[in-house]
């Protein structure tokens, strides 16, 4: 194999339809996750995002057991999850973290029980957790695209309340709209993202796609739309690179993609640290009387 050859980067895709489908699916997932993930990162929803990603498991398993589409099961599972968290945290006055943790492990255990006793291998646990990126169908692509459109529309319509929720919750509460409603709406778009994406990258790895690209974006930008743009680019490029890695080095596709997103974040974070260190060094030599409080990125 000649590494100098450009074909190394394109031939896998031109020769194999299944890789083209995987690439398109991955990019759609990346963009959807970029939108939802920006809110997850800015609003600190990573834990409940993770909980949703795993909490849908019994829903998916039950649906497959009943011969119903796994997507419907995932939708039901996420509703149960969110309702449960809401009830436990409000009614029993336990912290949000505790409520999320309880529902998370309960639903996950339930899901494992169901799949381990299922008489068919269609509800295979590892396939739900890790996805089947290399077996993407055009039906999956349509579903993913619809989810992207829905998430984008909701995020656009609710952009001002969402922005306020991320930046200053106190201000949000006094601004005349129900912060609880928009918080739940935010959770809903995360749920939709998870539900649409589990068939491609799997529930375990959706979380990676939600967080790492958006976290990278948040290192460089402060405007939500810019963060989303950077996240989309990082996610899409990671999909491409991850698939190439899977092809050339015989590694699992979904995991390669997610690991790439995390490595990109690590590289970006290192870059910003170095940049800051250089800038700080430069400032030490001239003594400035004023503080640098305003120069923090976040």
């Amino acid at each position, binding site marked *: *194999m000649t590494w100098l050859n450009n074909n190394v980067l394109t031939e*896998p895709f031109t*020769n*194999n*339809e*299944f*890789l083209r*489908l*995987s690439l398109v699916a991955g990019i759609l997932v990346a963009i959807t996750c970029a939108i939802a993930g920006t809110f997850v990162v800015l609003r600190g929803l990573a834990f409940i995002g993770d909980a949703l990603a795993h909490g849908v498991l*019994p829903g998916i398993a*039950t649906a497959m*057991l*009943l011969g119903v589409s796994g997507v419907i099961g995932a939708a039901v599972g996420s509703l*149960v999850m969110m*309702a*449960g968290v809401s*009830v436990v945290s*409000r*009614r029993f006055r336990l912290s949000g973290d505790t409520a999320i943790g309880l529902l998370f492990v309960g639903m996950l255990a*339930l899901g494992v*029980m*169901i799949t*381990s*006793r*299922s*008489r*068919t*291998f269609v509800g*295979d646990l*590892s*396939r739900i957790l*890790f996805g*089947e990126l*290399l*077996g*993407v*169908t055009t039906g999956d692509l349509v579903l993913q695209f619809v989810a992207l459109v829905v998430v984008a529309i909701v995020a656009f319509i609710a952009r001002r309340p969402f922005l306020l929720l991320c930046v200053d919750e106190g201000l949000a509460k006094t601004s005349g709209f129900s912060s609880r409603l928009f918080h739940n709406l935010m959770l809903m778009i995360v749920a939709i993202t998870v539900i649409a994406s589990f068939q491609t990258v799997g529930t375990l790895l959706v979380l990676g796609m939600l967080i790492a690209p958006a976290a990278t974006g948040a290192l460089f930008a402060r405007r939500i739309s810019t963060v989303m743009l950077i996240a989309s680019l990082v996610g899409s490029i990671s999909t491409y690179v991850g*698939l190439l890695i*899977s*092809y*050339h*080095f*015989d*590694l*699992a*596709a979904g995991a390669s993609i997610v690991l790439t997103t995390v490595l990109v974040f690590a590289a970006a974070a290192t870059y910003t640290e170095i940049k800051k260190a250089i800038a700080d060094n430069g400032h030490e030599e001239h003594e400035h009387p004023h503080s640098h409080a305003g120069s923090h990125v976040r």
Partner: protein
Amino acid sequence: MPKSGSVNLRKFLITALLLGVLVSCGSSGNSTNSIESTAQTAPDSVVADLPVIAVTYSVIGNIVSQLVGDNATVTVVISDGQDPHDFQPSAKDIETINNAALVVSNGLEFEEGLEEVLENIADSGGNIFMVGEHITVRKIENGDEHNHGEDEGHADEHGDDHGDKHTGGDPHLWLSPATMLEMLPALTSALSEAVGANLSAEATALTTKLQDLDGEVESIISSLGECNLVSGHDELGYFADRYGCNVIGAIIPSFTTTSEATAGELAELKLLVEQYKVPAIFTGLGTSPDTATQLAKELNIKAVTLSTHYLDGVTNYQEFILNLTNQIAEALS
């Protein structure tokens, strides 16, 4: 206590109850099955005084049944439809195994979830018969990944990184009647001792049936001319070796279903299928059906589902092998 709070609690409890009902409906059915012996229909509960033979999966379970007849109750631990490669036993399953007069398992690390239980029995001197110890095991040489035939540069790059998780050899030994014949004497004497009866008559009868079966399969396959096999995971090795077929490759090129397909291997598989003009790929337990369908579509060939790891409703081992052979022959002709 505010009214809305108790209404919410009620809704939550009802949802939980419904979910609980769904779960119990979905997972009804015992984890272990008593299967029919050829002589009589075994009752669901163990007949008093009859020794229990615990077999891990139904294919070998049927062989055992044909040998012991009504001298014992045969219980199959991994019920049909569950993947024996990653089946996780319940406490009840483990109890069944521990209390059996004899445990018959595949060996060669086939039942990954039962490894520890079976090892414990062997270590503590219990009665366990592992089929894999009494046959000629099919192995893969290091560096030559799964008999790819003339394979340009790829075999060298892959070496032995991930191809075989189990270096002990191919566990799918039940797919060749000749291999079954190889272990039959040892199995018969182990069973005879466990049930306290002389089973040589049954063994002779079964030997004849298996020899006839072997001949029948051979004539079906030899009438094909070329027999190039692509399977879900590397499961057809013993069958291929016995009847002169070539294992071209597999979607998951591993002896176990617990590995994942990678883009590189799938692309390589496509090239091989085109090179050897394979008319169909066989998929089944543990393989992603979508991946198989997509591959078949791209290559313009058929994707055929085979039931290779469990009896799937047929009455005995002979029928199981014949069905499999006919499906393969039909797909490849």
